C-alpha cells in the first residue's frame, strides 16, 4: 500500500517534469529562432529563416547597439523603469494594505473606482493628458512619464498587493498594535517584509511592462536623447522596411537587463517566510 503510493508519487513527479519541459520547449523553441536569425543578414533570413547561420556574425549586434542608440537608451529605460517601480510599489503597497484590511468605509467604493480606472483604454486619454503636460512644459520629462506609467499600472498593482495583504493573519497586526507599534513601524517593519513575494511579483510585472512600453513613451518622450531602449529599437523599424536580423539582435540585447533584474529580484524571494512567521 505504502510502496504503491510512493511509486504513484514518483510517476506524477516524472509526469510533471515532462509537462514542465514541454512547456519550456514551447516557450524557448520559437525564441531560439530569434537568436539564430540575429546572426544572419536579411537575404539569408528571407531565403531560409530556419537555416544555421553561415558564421557567428555579430555585426547585427554592433549595428543595432549604435543605430538604436542603446548607450543612452538603456540609461533612460533603467531610470524610467526604476522610478515607475518605486512609485508603484509605495503607492500600491500602502493602498493594498488599507484595502485588504477594509480599514476605511470607502473600501468598496475605492475598489470599484480602481476597477473602472483599469477599463479606460490608454489610446484615448493621450490627447487630453498631452495637452495638460504640454501646458506644464513636462513633455519629454522622464519622471513625468513615469508617473503616467505608474498610474496605468496602479489598479492591477493595488489589487495584487491587496490580495497579498489579505493572506496575512489579522492577529499578527493586532498583536503588534498591542505591543505599541506605530502605524509607520507596523507597515515598514512588519507588513511590508511579510508581503515581499507580492512586492517582488508586482515589481516584475510593472518592470516588464514599463520596459517594453511604447504607446505612452513614444507620445510623451521627445528628443532622441530622451528615448528609451524600446523607442530606439523601434526607430529602426517601419512597417514597409524591416531589417529582421538587426531587429532580432537588438531585441536580444534589450532583454538582457530584464533577465538580470529578474534574477536579482528572485534572490529576495525567501522561501517559507510567511508560514514561518505566522507560526511564530
Amino acid at each position, binding site marked *: 500500500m505504502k510502496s504503491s503510493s510512493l511509486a504513484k508519487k514518483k510517476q506524477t513527479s516524472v509526469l510533471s517534469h515532462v509537462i514542465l519541459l514541454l512547456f519550456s520547449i514551447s516557450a524557448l523553441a520559437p525564441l531560439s529562432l530569434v537568436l539564430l536569425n540575429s546572426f544572419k543578414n536579411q537575404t539569408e533570413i528571407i531565403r531560409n529563416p530556419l537555416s544555421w547561420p553561415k558564421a557567428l556574425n555579430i555585426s547585427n549586434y554592433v549595428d543595432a547597439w549604435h543605430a538604436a542608440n542603446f548607450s543612452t537608451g538603456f540609461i533612460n529605460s533603467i531610470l524610467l523603469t526604476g522610478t515607475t517601480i518605486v512609485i508603484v510599489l509605495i503607492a500600491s503597497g500602502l493602498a493594498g494594505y488599507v484595502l485588504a484590511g477594509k480599514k476605511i468605509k470607502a473600501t468598496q467604493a475605492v*475598489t470599484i473606482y480602481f476597477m473602472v480606472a483599469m477599463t479606460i483604454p490608454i489610446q*484615448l486619454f493621450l490627447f487630453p493628458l498631452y495637452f495638460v503636460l504640454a501646458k506644464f512644459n513636462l513633455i519629454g520629462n522622464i519622471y513625468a512619464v513615469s508617473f503616467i506609467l505608474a498610474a496605468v499600472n496602479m489598479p*492591477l498593482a493595488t489589487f495584487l498587493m491587496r490580495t497579498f495583504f489579505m493572506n496575512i493573519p489579522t492577529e499578527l497586526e493586532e498583536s503588534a498594535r498591542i505591543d505599541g507599534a506605530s502605524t509607520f513601524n507596523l507597515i515598514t517593519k512588519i507588513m511590508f517584509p511579510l508581503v515581499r513575494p507580492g512586492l517582488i511579483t508586482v515589481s516584475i510585472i510593472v518592470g516588464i511592462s514599463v520596459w517594453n512600453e511604447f504607446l505612452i513613451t513614444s507620445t510623451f518622450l521627445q528628443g532622441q536623447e530622451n528615448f528609451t531602449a524600446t523607442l530606439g529599437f523601434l526607430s529602426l523599424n517601419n512597417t514597409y522596411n524591416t531589417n529582421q536580423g538587426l531587429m532580432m539582435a537588438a531585441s536580444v540585447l534589450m532583454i538582457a537587463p530584464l533577465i538580470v533584474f529578474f534574477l536579482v529580484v528572485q534572490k529576495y524571494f525567501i522561501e517559507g517566510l510567511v508560514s514561518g512567521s505566522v507560526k511564530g
Partner: protein
Amino acid sequence: MRNTVNYFLISPALLISILIVFIPGLLTVIVAFTDWNGVSTTPNFVGVQNFNELFVDSIFWKALLNNAKWTLMFVTVPIVIGLLTAMMLLKRKKSKSAYQLIFLFPYILAPTTNAILWLNIIFNPVSGVIGYLQEIGIPIDSPLSSVDTALYAVASVDIWHYWGFLTVVYLAALRQTPAEQIEAAYLEGCNGWQIFRYVYFPSIRPTFNIMFVMIIIFSFLTFDYVYLLTGGGPSHSTEMLSTYAYTFAFSAFQVGKAAAIALFMSFFGLLASCLYIWMSRNDLKN
C-alpha cells in the same frame, strides 16, 4: 485618527490614478459626442450621431464579436496552463526560478520581435516553419491568411506570449498558502486534486478572481498583437474594437468616433468589474 491615517495611506495611489487616468478618461466621454478630428480647435457637438453610425456599421459588430471570442479564449486556455504550471513549480525548490524565467521569456521579449518571429519565420509558407512543414508533406497553410482562422492564430500567439505571466502571478500567490493547512490536508490523505481544490485554490482565490476579471478587461482592450500581426485583416476578420478605434483616431481623423468605440471597450470592462464585485462580495463587506 486611525481612519485619517488610513485615508492618508491610500491617497497617493488614488490621486495618481484620478489625475492621470480618470479625469482625462472622462474627457474622452465628452469627445465621444463630438465630431472632433483630433486637431481642430472647434469641435461640434453631434449628440449620439457617432453611436448611431456605429450601430449600423457591420465592421463594428464584427469587432465586438471578435472581442467576445477573444475573451472566451483568454479566460480558459492561459488560466488553465498558468495554474497547472504554477502548481507543478510549487514543489520544485531548485528549478523553480529557472522555469519561471524560461516561461517569462516570451512575455519579456518586445511585441515587435515576437510579431516578426511569428509572422515572418513561423507562419511563413514560403520559407518558414509552415513552408518546411509543407515541404515534408503536411498540408498546412498560414492560419493568418484565412478569414476563418486568422483570429485564432493571432490569439494563439498572444496566449503563447502571455501564459508565463500568469504562472508567475499564480505561483507567488500559491506560495503564500499557509504550510500547516497543507500538512493537515496531507495527513488526512487528500490527493493532489483535492489539495488543490480545498486548500490551495481557496487560498489564492482573491488573486484568481482579480486576474480573471483583469483578463476580461484586457481582452476588450487588446491591441498590440492584433495590430502587429494582421492589422485587423484579412477582410476585418481579426478587427478588434481597439484596432478599429485606432484606425478612426489616427488614420481617418475621426477621434470622436474612436472615443465612442472606446466607451464600448470600457463598458464591457465595467460589466466584468461588476462580476468581480459580485465574486468578492464577501471580502468587501465591512
